[in-house]
């Protein structure tokens, strides 16, 4: 990407003064005759380094998008895409350094270190894949409820019952998954809501007790969540491992120290966002900011400000009252939970036969739910593919690393 692209996009989407400060620092160093040529780093490498860092900054800045897109499937995909782009730039950067012979053993060691770090993200990818699968299961149940109520014609008792049953099965899944994710809040909320709702239904003889009884028997059957990662695996611990030892290189550390650090930070951000977004085993602790690696100094790296902006935004979102105990910060999960809740309330409040405002309420809630289901159906498959692509690329670059460092080992 030519440098002008970055300036073009950053001028509107990323007005932080720090990035230009960082850039001018770098260019100052390059232009200054006192330092320039005498540096250990060949000038080609310095130019490459600067370009690399600017590109990383630009890719991160490109993720932001509209406010209401934040943490949507689309947004996560953009984040993963940014990671892939950065990874590719890094690969090229390393290859060029290697070709120039400017990659001493210490540099190769840094590259290997990054690959080791990246390999730790593979389990996150697998867990996220399971999480996405889980979302699909939710979507299927939610879609039953929504589509039953949106079918043309009057809504009769049968449809209401059927929708309610699907919603209660969904509630069981949500409760289980939230419990597995390691947070209690929504789980207990949903559980109590379910009991309340079915309790009330049961108490009203005319309604013949919804699907409460059958959902009680089905509850245990639906508890089929199985993560393909090991039982003891924890997303929070994995994230800590990914971020372990991630510290900004000192000013005198030339060569690969800065790009490796940048990639470490971008990798951590991507993995962290993924864990935050979708259900994963033991993910809730991961959202706490004190588990984050030390923040990169804004002034020293052009990519630090956009990265920190994303990171802060994510941490904020995790702290929000209505999201703190969610089983995933993904926007679609939030909407799904909200619309499920709303639809359940609407159904509970609905007299039989349905008419007027009540019917409109039910249909409106159902339409909302249907919309988010559609969004999930459309988005989850590409998301899963992209998570897999991240997996592939990490593996591929590690293998390339294994192959090329082999000759330069010792």
């Amino acid at each position, binding site marked *: 990407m030519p440098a002008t692209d970055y300036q073009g996009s950053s001028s509107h989407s990323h007005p932080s003064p720090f990035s230009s400060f960082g850039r001018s620092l770098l260019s100052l160093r390059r232009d200054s005759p006192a330092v320039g040529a005498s540096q250990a780093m060949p000038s080609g490498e310095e130019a490459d380094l600067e370009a690399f860092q600017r590109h990383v900054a630009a890719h991160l800045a490109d993720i932001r998008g509209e406010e209401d897109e934040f943490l949507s499937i689309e947004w996560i995909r953009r984040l993963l895409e940014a990671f892939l782009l950065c990874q590719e730039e890094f690969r090229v950067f390393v290859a060029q350094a290697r070709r120039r012979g400017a990659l001493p053993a210490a540099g190769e060691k840094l590259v290997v270190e990054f690959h080791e770090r990246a390999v730790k993200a593979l389990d996150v990818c697998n867990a996220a894949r399971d999480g996405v699968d889980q979302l699909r299961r939710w979507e299927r149940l939610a879609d039953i409820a929504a589509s039953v109520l949106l079918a043309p014609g009057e809504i009769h008792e049968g449809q209401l019952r*059927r929708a309610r*049953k699907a919603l209660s099965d969904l509630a069981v899944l949500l409760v289980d998954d939230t419990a597995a994710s390691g947070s209690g809040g929504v789980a207990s909320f949903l559980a109590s809501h379910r009991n309340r709702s079915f309790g009330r239904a049961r108490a009203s003889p005319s309604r013949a007790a919804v699907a409460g009884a059958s959902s009680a028997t089905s509850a245990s059957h639906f508890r089929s969540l199985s993560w393909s990662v090991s039982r003891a695996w924890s997303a929070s611990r994995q994230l800590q491992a990914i971020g372990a030892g991630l510290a900004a290189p000192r000013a005198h550390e030339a060569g690969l120290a800065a790009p490796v650090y940048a990639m470490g930070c971008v990798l951590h951000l991507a993995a962290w966002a993924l864990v935050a977004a979708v259900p994963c085993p033991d993910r809730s602790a991961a959202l706490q900011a004190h588990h984050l690696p030390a923040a990169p100094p804004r002034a020293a790296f052009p990519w630090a400000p956009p990265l920190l902006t994303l990171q802060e935004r994510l941490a904020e979102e995790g702290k929000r009252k209505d999201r703190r105990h969610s089983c995933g910060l993904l926007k679609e999960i939030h909407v799904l939970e909200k619309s499920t809740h709303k639809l359940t309330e609407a159904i509970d409040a609905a007299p039989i036969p349905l008419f007027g405002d009540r019917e409109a309420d039910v249909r409106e809630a159902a339409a909302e739910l249907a919309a988010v289901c559609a969004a999930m159906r459309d988005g989850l498959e590409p998301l899963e593919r992209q998570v897999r692509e991240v997996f592939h690329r990490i593996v591929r670059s590690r*293998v390339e690393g294994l192959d090329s460092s082999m*000759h330069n080992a010792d």
Partner: protein
Amino acid sequence: MDGSAELEAAERVVMRWDSTSASASAAADEPMLFDGASGDRIEAERFLRAVDDLRRLAPPSPAAVGSPRCLSSGSSAGGASSAVQVAMARLEDEFRHVLSSRALDLEIEALADLGGSLSISSDRSNSASSADLQVVDEDDSVSSSVGRRSSYRSLPSIREIDLLPDDAVADLRAIASRMAAAGYGRECAQVYASVRKPAVDASLRRLGVERLSIGDVQRLEWKALEAKIRRWIRAARAAVRGVFASERRLCFLIFHDLPISNITITATATATAATAPATHDTPFAEAIKGAALQLFGFAEAISIGRRSPEKLFKIIDLHDALSDLLPDVSDIFAASKVAESIYVQAAEIRSRLADAVRGILSEFENAVLRDPPKTAVPGGTIHPLTRYVMNYSSLISDYKATLSELIVSRPSASARLAAEGNELAPSLAELELPEPENQSPLAAHIIWIIVVLEHNLEGKASLYKDTALSHLFLMNNVYYIVHKVKDSPDLWSLIGDDYLKRLTGKFTMAATNYQRSAWLKILNCLRDEGLHVSGGFSSGISKSALRERFRSFNAAFEEAHRVQSGWCVPDTQLREELRISISEKLVPAYRSFLGRFRHHIENGKHPELYIKYSAEDLEIAVNDFFEGVPPSPHIRRRSHG
């Protein structure tokens, strides 16, 4: 009975079995319609008929509301739809009940025996393990006990097992078809997957498939992983050919031709692309997807591990096992989009394992190249590296069926470039690889490995201060290489006669060089030149020169005897031949020297100081050579005088 009376009768039947009614919440002892022998067959049939009647007489499709057939009032339509819902809730419970309570105990142990060649393959695996390669001892049984390309390929194929008795499957089919017809296919599919998924997971646990994350696998010792790979190969066969195949069949028997997942009535019908022919597969895919990904995840974790030479053969085993399974995986999983992604992933992992095999092989080549010449092995015997590399090479030739497929490029230019950049091997790039026509890439690699080994050995040979010993070292090692090649027909055929000839030539050269540098000086003592006094008629022999000659011969021979008895030629035949060859040169020369000059000495004083040994003494003394043991301090003399 007119339509509405029939409808009411049907509703009554259905309502009797309202599982959503409050009284039915005592789930445990609730009677079920379909319950094997204890169920009420007649009632079950009646219930299904009632469901059919409901559908026939009052189509639940809301689209039918207001159509001429719907004569009754709106509330009746609502009642019918309510009855349908009650019936469907009931059927869903019945479906779940039959599916979970009538499941047969899967005979996992029998399934695990699907891999019939188990004993052979584990034998082979044991002998190919890293320990055997590293701990090389005198006996070379490593290669002789392996090499039978065991019957990996002749495994039994898919074996579908009844997961439920036929009558239960028939009941499930009957229920599923009612639910699908009423538009409740998705609910039915959900229940199916929610029951079968844990069952599949449990089967895999019983087969010994562990849930290991990639991190777990990376932390494990290779020895432990080898055992896990062995177990995985067995488990994967049983899982794919037994468990997954049986699941697919069950799903097919219950759901085939039923419209179960194509009902998304919402306006946004974009994702309703579940294509009709594959519908019976969706519940199957959901039931097994997690288990399958987890199963293959282990092979994937292995494929991305560090590449070290000792892993090669186990990874080939894993690769072969997966390759062998792929056609079945394709057969089982290719029927739907979701399931197909599992096949794609398995195929990816196979090719990653192939990459790993290639990577490990070049890692091995590099390791051979780089093995640093630290200290010389005492006595010039066979270097452990030589044994290691040759045992490894003959294992490679044992695996040539797979390796010939995987190794498609000759030793890369980059490998040679790396060799060039290696200070240990500055001249390696000059080495020419013999490249006869139609030589396979694998053969080129093996030859390259041996070339690199030879080169490395030359570096190690230069560690000896004594050039004769350095030649002896090379002779021993090249002889060992030649021998190993000849011992393994597979290796021989890979390497070819040309290269073997070169190796033999190299061996002969080393043997000649040894003899020259070790014995020329000694034999020179026995020459005539320099003994004759110049001028004068009588053939003048300088007695003092002659005495000096005998003295220096004795000293040189004693020194050679002392030193070379400590040298080592481990191969008995080679040792014998070498002694004979030395004797053949030494003894006649000595005998003739003695014949020509002994009287000059014997006429003088103290002849025993100069003629210490008879020819026979030398012959006997030569037998002490190359034993690799400190020699007796003195040369034994057969006779005195």
